[in-house]
């Protein structure tokens, strides 16, 4: 058990370290960064903002991790967010109750996932192409629903999901934490996670050894659709309106980036939902840090890119070899432990 735990900690170490360094850097530029206070019965501060604003990408990253573990990718999640936001706004403004609205919206997200899953699993279309279809068409569908305008609503229940608070935390934070824990337990406390990894490493071999890979693949994309639906509801509820053009725009790329920063390989196989969630927080910390720093907006994207390149270079297998070599030359005794950390970290060598 303790070996299991230490392996887990080692697996998350690079991501946690990167996040810590970034938070520290921001606090140098902006000393009040770590200040937290209670306001209107909820925590208030920049750290809470990072957790709150990172909610959509964190939710998308949960589904994306599972899809990527199956050696797939889901480019449609941003567009599915827009569709689901539009569906939620249309439902609530036409007088349906909150429960019906949420059910219909989540259903719409799962349906989008089912479409992707069928294209990938049954028709055997490459995931990047299959999900590209909905990525392009999705925004059009969302615009059809909102008729091109921003569809605003005033239902207090729906607004609560975007800007209410529970246990002193903003609702979106509670939702993505809970969702992440449930999905992580579901895949790790059952054989599901193992089966997904097997499917991602070799689908044919998994099928031959009795795993119903088709069902599993479709389920992975449906989970991704569900995550996108929740993210879409949060994004719409946050601004009290469904903005078909901008809701979730480019977030599929941020979600993929979060998974990659989390160390899950795009080639499928081993995955870690916790690492992806930390990856999502790293991205949001960079965004929030740039906003707080007061740099002119022309620098936003360059700073973000530079930090991300740095993180990815440090995590790359080549850099790991160099680090391992350096630590080995320092002391042979440390070598074995470092070796194990490497293997746990990249996941690829372990296969």
């Amino acid at each position, binding site marked *: 058990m303790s070996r299991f735990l230490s392996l887990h900690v080692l697996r998350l170490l690079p991501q946690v370290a990167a996040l810590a360094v970034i938070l520290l850097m921001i606090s140098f530029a902006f000393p009040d960064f770590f200040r937290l206070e209670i306001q209107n019965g909820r925590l208030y501060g920049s750290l809470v903002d990072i957790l709150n604003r990172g909610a959509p990408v964190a939710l998308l990253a949960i589904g994306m991790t599972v899809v990527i573990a199956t050696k797939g990718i889901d480019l449609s999640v941003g567009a599915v967010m827009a569709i689901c936001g539009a569906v939620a706004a249309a439902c609530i403004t036409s007088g349906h109750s909150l429960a019906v609205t949420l059910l219909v919206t989540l259903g719409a997200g799962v349906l989008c996932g089912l479409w992707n899953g069928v294209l990938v699993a049954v028709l055997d279309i490459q995931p990047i192409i299959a999900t590209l279809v909905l990525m392009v068409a999705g925004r059009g569908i969302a615009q059809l629903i909102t008729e091109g305008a921003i569809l605003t609503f005033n239902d207090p229940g729906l607004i609560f999901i975007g800007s209410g608070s529970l246990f002193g935390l903003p609702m979106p934070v509670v939702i993505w934490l809970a969702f992440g824990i449930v999905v992580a337990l579901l895949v790790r406390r059952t054989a599901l996670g193992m089966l997904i990894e097997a499917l991602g490493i070799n689908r044919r071999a998994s099928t031959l050894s009795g795993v119903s890979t088709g069902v599993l693949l479709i389920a992975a994309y449906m989970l991704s659709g569900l995550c996108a639906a929740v993210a879409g509801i949060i994004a719409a509820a946050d601004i009290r309106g469904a*903005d078909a053009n901008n809701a979730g725009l480019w977030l599929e790329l941020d979600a993929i980036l979060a998974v990659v920063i989390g160390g899950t390989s795009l080639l499928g196989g081993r995955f870690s939902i916790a690492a992806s969630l930390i990856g999502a927080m790293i991205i949001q910390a960079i*965004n929030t840090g740039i906003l707080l720093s007061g740099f002119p907006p022309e620098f936003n994207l360059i700073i973000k890119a530079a930090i991300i390149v740095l993180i990815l270079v440090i995590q790359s297998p080549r850099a790991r070899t160099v680090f391992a070599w350096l630590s080995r030359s320092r002391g042979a005794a440390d070598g074995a432990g470092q070796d194990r950390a490497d293997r746990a970290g990249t996941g690829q060598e372990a296969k």
Partner: protein
Amino acid sequence: MTIKAALAGATVLAVSFFSAAAAAEMTVGFSQIGSESGWRAAETTLTKQQAEERGIDLKFADAQQKQENQIKALRSFIAQGVDAILLAPVVATGWDEVLQEAKEAEIPVVLLDRTVDAADDLYLTAITSDLVHEGNVAGQWLADTVAGKPCNVVELQGTTGSSPAIDRKKGFEQALESHDNLKIIRSQTGDFTRTKGKEVMESFLKAEDGGKNICALYAHNDDMAVGAIQAIKEAGLKPGTDILVVSIDAVPDIFEAMAAGEANATVELTPNMAGPAFDALDAYRKDGTAPPKWIQTESKLYTQADDPMKVYEEKKGLGY
């Protein structure tokens, strides 16, 4: 007498029939940026309405915020041989080549609501509001309102590099130049969207002592202001009182906020750009009168004193 009247009537009918037929022959391609804001949707609605009223066959292309899509749309309009092209350019640069192609095909291009960095012989005319003037009106209002008291202003810019972001910033800064009491302390892009407006305002509030340091917000469009107003409320401050809110565009939702006392002023950017565009095109096609290179629309200031609820009701039906 009756014969004369009948003849006259017939002539009028015939003339109107022919002119209608002549107008119907006009096919116009319209490359719209997208519908990133309510204003943009209203412009699209009004353009379609105007085209229908004048019997113009309008080919509409939505670019989804991408210049490459607009260039593709323009090329396809040229290939279809339309009589004129309306272009609402998403960014200012990179249009020379495709505009040259339109010129070679002898298709007049009218720019709507934004301009481009290209030689002015490449397009017929640009119909825009004076963006610098809009920023100026907003800045002037703020200077008059705070009347000499020291005031720290935060600014939500539009999409980096777009001409409204550059010019609305410039005009506002010009208005503030002669007032040492007004100072822009933070300026960031909110990409013209509610979500980003809210997120950036949240960070401004954190960075400036929970917002106590901020006296006014200037947003380059109303949607960002609407998002920012929510952020101000969630931070426990009163928008419109603790932090003055002035923005540009005059979309219906900002009038609702003004009626509730949460926004203070907005400068109107009229969504009816197509009307003057079609007028100019008609004159140009009839006898070749080249319109001036720039046709300016009015920038009207609305405040809480202008019965915001009434304006809201008027604007609601426009498709914002």
